[in-house]
């Protein structure tokens, strides 16, 4: 049973009944779901969770929607991998990777979309829609197909070909917009006012965003109901980072963690789109919008909706926000693949390259238990690494040719 009770403005605190609305009528602030935590405390235990499904729905009472029947909206319960080789390379101690490439459409967006479309079905919507930099497009198109909803997905026209293809294959409408993500987002806000659709990141955003909390729940459960000391999270809108923080706090509120968790939260951005990192480094509260220019298109949001809150979380937890160049992003992707056999997309490159920087700067420390969030699969952004990786050599099909090409490699006898 869902114990989401109302929507509350994060800015002025005004409350609203549960509905497909997303901004405060009074001050335009974003709305967030409230819960009856006392009731959840009574209904959710470590044992009941362990007996639940291997998906985000094992934490059903902490999500703002009834768990849907059947498997159509499954996502989550992805592996938490101990990354010893990467840790050694970075001079870190206990490092873990939350491998969210292992979702139905290979990114963490399957989590938020499962919650958003579950809520859309509850509200009686017949069409799902979104503004997307690609991963969300994949997730919405696929989940709409599985649940029998129509879909309209709006993407910037310069998106990677792979992300368009992996959206269009599900048969919904894919509309490319001549403009960047912020332009697409603005158009979608207009469309949301005109069409009776569930725009997952507009009018059902307060519910959608809650899906990201499951990354924190799973991390804690997979660590044996303990929390990390430090997490590194990529920032696009900033929502993922703030919800991971909220997720850890909630586990204590509902009694699943005995002690209040102390988790430092650090953010990762591409230098070509780093409004939060810039505000952090400059020591200011204003997150000034930028025009994105980076290969990390899934993070290319120049006007991050939750930027202020992400900045608050980073500062209040003693984390940091770093940014890395496009070259470092490619190097980050390769480092992760080379050391751990995990192929992440450009956002993962941003996360790993930022983790490397923060480790070098002593912000992420060797004595900390660290979790880095790998939010999307590398097959989604092949364009980014295509110029940088190739076959080692091409030879005729003969033993001699191989020996000539690799004289230093000893033959096993």
């Amino acid at each position, binding site marked *: 049973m869902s114990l989401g009770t109302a929507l509350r403005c994060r800015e002025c605190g005004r409350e609203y009944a549960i509905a497909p609305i997303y901004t405060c009528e*009074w001050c335009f602030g974003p709305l967030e779901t409230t819960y009856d935590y006392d009731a959840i405390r009574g209904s959710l235990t470590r044992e009941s969770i362990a007996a639940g499904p291997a998906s985000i729905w094992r934490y059903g009472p902490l999500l703002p929607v009834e768990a849907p029947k059947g498997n159509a909206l499954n996502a989550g319960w992805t592996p938490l991998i101990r990354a010893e080789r990467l840790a050694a390379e970075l001079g870190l101690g206990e490092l873990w990777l939350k491998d969210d490439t292992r979702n139905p459409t290979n990114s963490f967006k399957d989590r938020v979309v499962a919650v958003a479309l579950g809520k859309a079905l509850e509200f009686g919507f017949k069409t799902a829609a979104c503004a997307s930099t690609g991963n969300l497009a994949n997730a919405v198109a696929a989940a709409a197909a599985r649940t029998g909803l129509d879909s309209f997905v709006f993407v910037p026209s310069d998106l990677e070909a792979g992300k368009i293809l992996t959206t269009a294959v599900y048969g919904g409408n894919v509309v490319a917009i001549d403009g960047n993500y912020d332009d697409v987002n603005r158009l979608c*806000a207009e469309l949301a006012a005109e069409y009776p659709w569930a725009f997952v990141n507009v009018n059902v955003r307060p519910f959608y965003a809650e899906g990201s909390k499951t990354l924190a729940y799973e991390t804690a459960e997979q660590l044996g109901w303990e929390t990390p000391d430090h997490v590194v999270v990529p920032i696009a809108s900033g929502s993922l980072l703030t919800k991971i923080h909220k997720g850890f706090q909630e586990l204590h509120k509902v009694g699943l963690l005995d002690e209040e968790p102390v988790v430092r939260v650090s953010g990762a951005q591409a230098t070509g789109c780093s409004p939060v990192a810039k505000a952090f480094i400059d020591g200011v509260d204003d997150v000034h919008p930028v025009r994105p220019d980076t290969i990390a298109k899934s993070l290319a949001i120049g*006007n991050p909706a939750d930027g202020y809150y992400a900045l608050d979380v980073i500062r209040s937890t003693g984390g940091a926000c770093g940014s890395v160049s496009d070259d470092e992003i490619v190097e980050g992707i390769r480092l992760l693949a080379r050391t751990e056999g995990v192929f992440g997309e450009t956002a993962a490159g941003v996360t790993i390259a930022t983790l490397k920087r923060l480790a070098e700067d002593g912000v992420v420390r060797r004595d900390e238990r660290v979790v880095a969030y790998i939010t999307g699969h590398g097959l989604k952004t092949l364009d980014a690494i295509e110029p940088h990786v190739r076959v080692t050599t091409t030879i005729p099909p003969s033993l001699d040719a191989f020996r000539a090409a690799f004289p230093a490699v000893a033959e096993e006898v």
Partner: protein
Amino acid sequence: MATVRIPTQLRSLVDGASELTVDGDTVGDVLKALDAAHPGFGERLFDENGKLRRFVNVFVDDEDLRFLQGLDTPLTERSVVSIVPAVAGGCERV
């Protein structure tokens, strides 16, 4: 002088108008004039320090005020000022 597009949240303060023509040389002037003509309008847009609330975005001819000169951004008679909620960055066209 400029045309101001009013978001749905504020239309009850301006007799339901979705668009108004307002006198003023800068964005700040125009928004002040709106508050003078329609009491209560200003407190919805500005915090107690007189700064635009952080989830209120203002666009002049589809350009975010923060890429221009903020409230000092000059206007022409053909300028269109849009007030929009920041969460989705929505720009309402009427």
